[in-house]
């Protein structure tokens, strides 16, 4: 069964030409027509029942517009959307809160805005309070809440909706690690029970982990539709290429050397890059002038944003001397210690401790499960078993005598 069907959907926004103020009536009569912007252009896609679809794309690609149309906040300019089932959207979870009302009152208000009946909310109230962890502060006006409590309460209400189709828009970017884990658990639970999920995120690792299928949006068009890993790869190539292009023009004169690309490969391994197996990282650069004391860095970040590890040419003897021209630096790791997952990669070139080029989110690295590892790292090791045969209790006693 198809739960969601987008058919030739387009959405046009009018752009006021002079800032965001409406034109005065006397100037409007003489002004030319205001500009237009197509947020979505002829978008077609389907989501099957029980499927989790991820939508990725750079800022302004039309992801949020899809959300707004689906949840009914705005309407398409043309096209038709069919939704089968009750739909609930988790978009910036606490926007419906009123600061003067207490936590409990806000649960009723926000729940009703999300389409819950009062009786339904009354039944779920205890469970919502427990999930949010707000506890005894439930009778305090939410204006006195910390921002974390605010967001947790918002998500707790939304998590107790019982929709057939759930829309998630960047909701996991909030709360502490423990709460995020709780949210992911709840979403996985909803998935398991056969809910259809549409998930919009910049967190590619989460898309990879949660979704069965993904689509890539760019400038309002669907560029690709398929397995998450394939779509994410395409998105990364696109964003890296795009970033290079735009900085080429802007920073040509300012930058003395640039990172022009990065390739990760696994020599002699048909299964790709795996934990505990060799990895080769090749960072291409272009130097416009000689760079003294140059240092290259490839930083791997966890999805949470913490630095996981870094490959660098830095050493106590200082950096290397680069001549003008192009080239690459190749890092060879005999056994990759990081565990399976998706890592964000930042690239940098430094000279005498000064940044020359820095590419934030320049690429991503996906590591497949390889050697068995739990925790954050795989520790290369060799082990031997030393066995002492057990003696009967009596034997010890006898020899002691």
């Amino acid at each position: 069964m198809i739960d969601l069907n987008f058919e030739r959907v387009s959405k046009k926004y009018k752009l006021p030409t002079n800032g965001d103020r409406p034109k005065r009536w006397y100037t409007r009569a003489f002004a030319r027509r205001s500009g237009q912007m197509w947020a979505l252009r002829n978008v077609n896609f389907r989501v099957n029942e029980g499927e989790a679809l991820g939508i990725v794309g750079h800022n302004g690609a039309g992801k949020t517009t899809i959300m707004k149309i689906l949840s009914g906040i705005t309407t398409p300019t043309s096209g038709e959307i069919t939704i089968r089932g009750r739909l609930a959207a988790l978009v910036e979870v606490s926007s419906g809160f009123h600061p003067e009302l207490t936590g409990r009152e806000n649960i009723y208000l926000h729940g009703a805005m999300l389409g819950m009946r009062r009786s339904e909310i009354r039944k779920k109230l205890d469970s919502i309070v427990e999930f949010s962890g707000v506890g005894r502060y439930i009778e305090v006006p939410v204006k006195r809440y910390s921002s974390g409590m605010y967001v947790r309460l918002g998500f707790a209400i939304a998590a107790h909706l019982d929709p057939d189709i759930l829309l998630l828009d960047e909701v996991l970017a909030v709360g502490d690690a423990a709460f995020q884990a709780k949210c992911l658990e709840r979403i996985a639970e909803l998935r398991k029970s056969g809910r259809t999920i549409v998930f919009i995120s910049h967190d590619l690792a989460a898309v990879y982990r949660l979704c069965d299928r993904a689509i890539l949006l760019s400038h309002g068009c669907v560029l690709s539709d398929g397995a998450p890993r394939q779509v994410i790869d395409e998105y990364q190539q696109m964003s890296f290429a795009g970033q290079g292009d735009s900085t080429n023009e802007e920073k040509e004169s300012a930058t003395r050397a640039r990172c022009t690309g990065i390739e990760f490969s696994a020599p002699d391994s048909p299964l790709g890059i795996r934990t505990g197996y060799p990895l080769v990282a090749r960072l291409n650069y272009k130097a416009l002038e000689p760079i003294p004391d140059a240092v290259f860095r490839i930083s791997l970040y966890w999805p949470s944003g913490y630095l996981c590890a870094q490959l660098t040419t830095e050493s106590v003897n200082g950096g290397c001397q680069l001549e003008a021209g192009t080239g690459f630096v190749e890092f060879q790791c005999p056994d990759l210690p990081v565990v399976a997952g998706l890592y964000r990669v930042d690239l940098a070139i430094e000279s005498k401790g000064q940044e020359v080029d820095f590419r934030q989110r320049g690429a991503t690295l996906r590591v497949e499960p390889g050697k068995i590892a739990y925790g954050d790292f795989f520790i290369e090791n060799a082990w031997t078993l030393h066995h002492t045969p057990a003696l009967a209790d009596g034997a010890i006693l006898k020899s002691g005598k």
Partner: protein
Amino acid sequence: MSAPNITADNEVPDSSIKDSDGFEAATRLAPADGRPVKIIRPPSFSLSTIFIGLRTLVQYSDLLYTLSLFRLNVRYKQSALGWTWAALQPLALMGIYTLIFTRITSVATGGVPYPVFVFSGLLPWIFFSTTISNAVQGLVLYPNLLTKMYFPREIIPLSYMIASLTDFCIASVIMGGLMVHYKMPLTWHVLYAIPIIVLMAGFAAAIALFFSALQVRFRDVGLAMPFLLQVWMFTVPVVYSLQSVPPRFRSLYLLDPISGLIEGFRGAIIHGVTPDFRVMSLCGLVVLVSWPLAYAYFKSSEATMADVI
């Protein structure tokens, strides 16, 4: 706009059932045709939007109730006098108008003490004007609500109307107290006040819907509204009686349904007379025509409200 199926939607079970329960999930998905199907198309202005809109509104009736309740709650939060404010405002106005219209100049009241006379006019007028002035600001007060969440937007102006209606009921108690104080007889004609207030609420809702939708696009509405309401008050018989108006202008006067309704309300309460049937049916007609028009306009502009706010 969309056409959600109410009956099917209500059949979606509550999730007091554990979601992780595989068996429950299976039975839940089995009657696949029981799910509501909603089709979203580009907006169009038509009469069917009214019916679809009203059906959605019924689904969200709990939100209307909750929001109206909280309008009242929030208004008097962190205020020392609290609910007394609902009565203080008309009382203060009564005092000032009594001072002006008995000391400085005078108006014909038909033998009724002026404080009671003006209070009986202020009561419905304050209900009408606060509904409109609050509702017009209401939609643009929290732009986040409009751009981040969906619920039928008319609930916001309507909730202000219900809150004003509650204030009206509180102030009515004061009205009763005043009548007892001035030893005025209460007749069964008081019951005529109920249909009059219903008509008034209908008209106030129509005006509030129309202007609040317009306010999203043009903030001029909100800026003009206080002034407009002030002028409006002096064009209807609140502080003076219809008898003070020259007879040749009276029929023109009664074209404004608020004039007829306030005059009818006052007559029923303090003079104990039956409202003029012709005037009332004219008011009813105006409400019946203006309501669907205002609602249809509101619903058609709702489709793009989030884009222009």
